[in-house]
């Protein structure tokens, strides 16, 4: 229904939309614009020099590489988690289900110091892992642990509702045609779950790339080794290198916007393929 002005029955449209646009502009659009404007004070060569300096490149490798790995871990375990929550009954399930959202609710700094306490050399797990030669805290592995923690709910909460809505008829048909459970999962269920799984993966990845609070405590923050890009922005700010900080921020923003675009597309695909089943 694309009714014209005259057919609008409900009041308040100009006020509601006007307020929305002004608030959006003041809080989001103008501040974001400021970042791009500030970076425009650099010439292209200067901009390129800043964003391709060896230390900055190393931080991209850490941030994007570890985020990708964490999102992949979350995709696998998040799928198992969602499956178990939907398909099986076991004691304590309600509590487990409620606590899946802990990474959303727990402040990142709290998660950061807790994970560090667990994996440090004298920590609960660290004291057992370090004699085995496995140093977690203050290495890229620690970043992986933090980003896996942060990303878990994204995959579970995007896959879970799709699994819940799934008709049993699909699987019954597969079983009656002689497929075993693994075949049914691979050929029938996985294709249906794939859009949601990819959406969750992309959401977890996008969040991990920008994550700061939970990472800096456990990362050790060694330049070239375990320094994430958001930390580099802060380091530059603390040295009053506003332009340098802004240039790196622009790179991250562009990546974020591309990811947002991708996620929107994935969600459209997910909704459409759900409508079909």
């Amino acid at each position, binding site marked *: 229904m694309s009714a014209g002005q005259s057919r609008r029955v409900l009041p308040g449209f100009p006020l509601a939309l006007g307020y929305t646009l002004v608030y*959006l502009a003041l809080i989001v659009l103008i501040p974001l614009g400021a970042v791009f404007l500030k970076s425009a004070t650099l010439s292209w060569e200067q901009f390129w020099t800043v964003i391709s300096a060896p230390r900055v490149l190393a931080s991209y490798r850490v941030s994007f590489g570890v985020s990708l790995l964490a999102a992949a871990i979350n995709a696998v375990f998040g799928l198992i988690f969602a499956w178990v929550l939907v398909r099986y009954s076991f004691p304590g399930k309600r509590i487990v289900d409620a606590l899946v959202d802990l990474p959303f609710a727990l*402040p990142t700094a709290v998660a950061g110091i807790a994970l560090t306490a667990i994996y440090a050399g004298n920590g609960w797990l660290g004291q057992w892992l370090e004699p085995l030669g496995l140093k977690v805290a203050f290495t890229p592995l620690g970043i992986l642990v933090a980003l896996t923690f942060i990303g878990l709910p994204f995959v579970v909460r995007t896959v879970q509702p799709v699994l819940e809505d799934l008709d049993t008829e699909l699987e019954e048909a597969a079983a009656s045609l002689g497929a075993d459970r693994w075949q049914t999962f691979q050929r029938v269920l996985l294709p249906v779950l794939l859009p949601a799984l990819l959406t969750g993966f992309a959401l977890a990845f996008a*969040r991990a790339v920008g994550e700061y609070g939970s990472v800096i405590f456990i990362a050790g923050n060694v330049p070239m080794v375990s320094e994430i890009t958001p930390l580099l922005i802060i380091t530059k700010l603390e040295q009053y290198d506003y332009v340098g900080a802004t240039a790196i921020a622009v790179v991250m923003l562009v990546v974020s916007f591309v990811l947002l675009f991708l996620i929107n597309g994935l*969600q459209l695909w997910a*909704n459409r393929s759900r409508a079909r089943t």
Partner: protein
Amino acid sequence: MGAAVATPWTARARRFEENVATREPAWVKGVLITIALAFFGLFLLLPLMTVFAEAFRKGWQVYFAALVEPDALSAIALTLLVAAIAVPLNLVFGVAAAWAIAKFDFRGKQLLTTLIDLPFSVSPVIAGLMFVLLFGMQGWFGPWLMAHDVKIIFAVPGLVLATIFVTFPFVARELIPLMEAQGREEEEAAIVLGASGWQTFWRVTLPNVKWGLLYGVILCNARAMGEFGAVSVVSGHIRGRTNTLPLQVEILYNEYNFAAAFAVASLLALLALLTLVIKSLVEWRGRQPLNAGEESQGVPA
């Protein structure tokens, strides 16, 4: 809650477990549950328990001393103040945006919805940076603000702005799909029967979306009180003046005062647990409308 909730909950899983076509051999089920619970224990339960174990490691007295210390108290007050400003502002915005988007048709609606989600995909550090570029000493408005003796960066207004930005989408993204799913007929009937716009909103729309609204507000509040990266950039870490609770945790931790750091952190962990409890209750109370809302969106960051 108890049995009344447990029945449909377990019944849903049983539907799969009792059907030959949708159940796995017992050993597969056992292995999958074990993997999920091990992952749960390692990544969710252990960090949560660590916070409390470390907080009480040196006993109750040290714990309470850390909480009533003046810097901690001022951090608590500041955290409450920032949330008390940021959450209502985003609440009003969320309602206005949802009213415009869900109850009317206009061009660019999809774009507007995407723009509202934008803050979720921006790194908190960049959120802080934006406001430094605008209001910092070397920022666009810096000189003007200096001349008029207004402090935004390294002061409370900066903390509020950064917090509003990172919590911007929470209420709106909860309400928009919910109000869209509920359609416009009820409101239109109220208006045709002679109700005013405000009456329609308060008596028809609001009762329909109250659980979704509460849900959005809780998540918004949890993030507002717990935000670290964005406020860290704009705060300047002035003890007793611009330190919120998460920043206080960082300062204490970096001073190797672990017991106090975890004591303050345990307050935030309690807040997180409370948020999850209310969230579960809300989901239970408003299951139908909330599910309708959650289907069409992702998960709040």
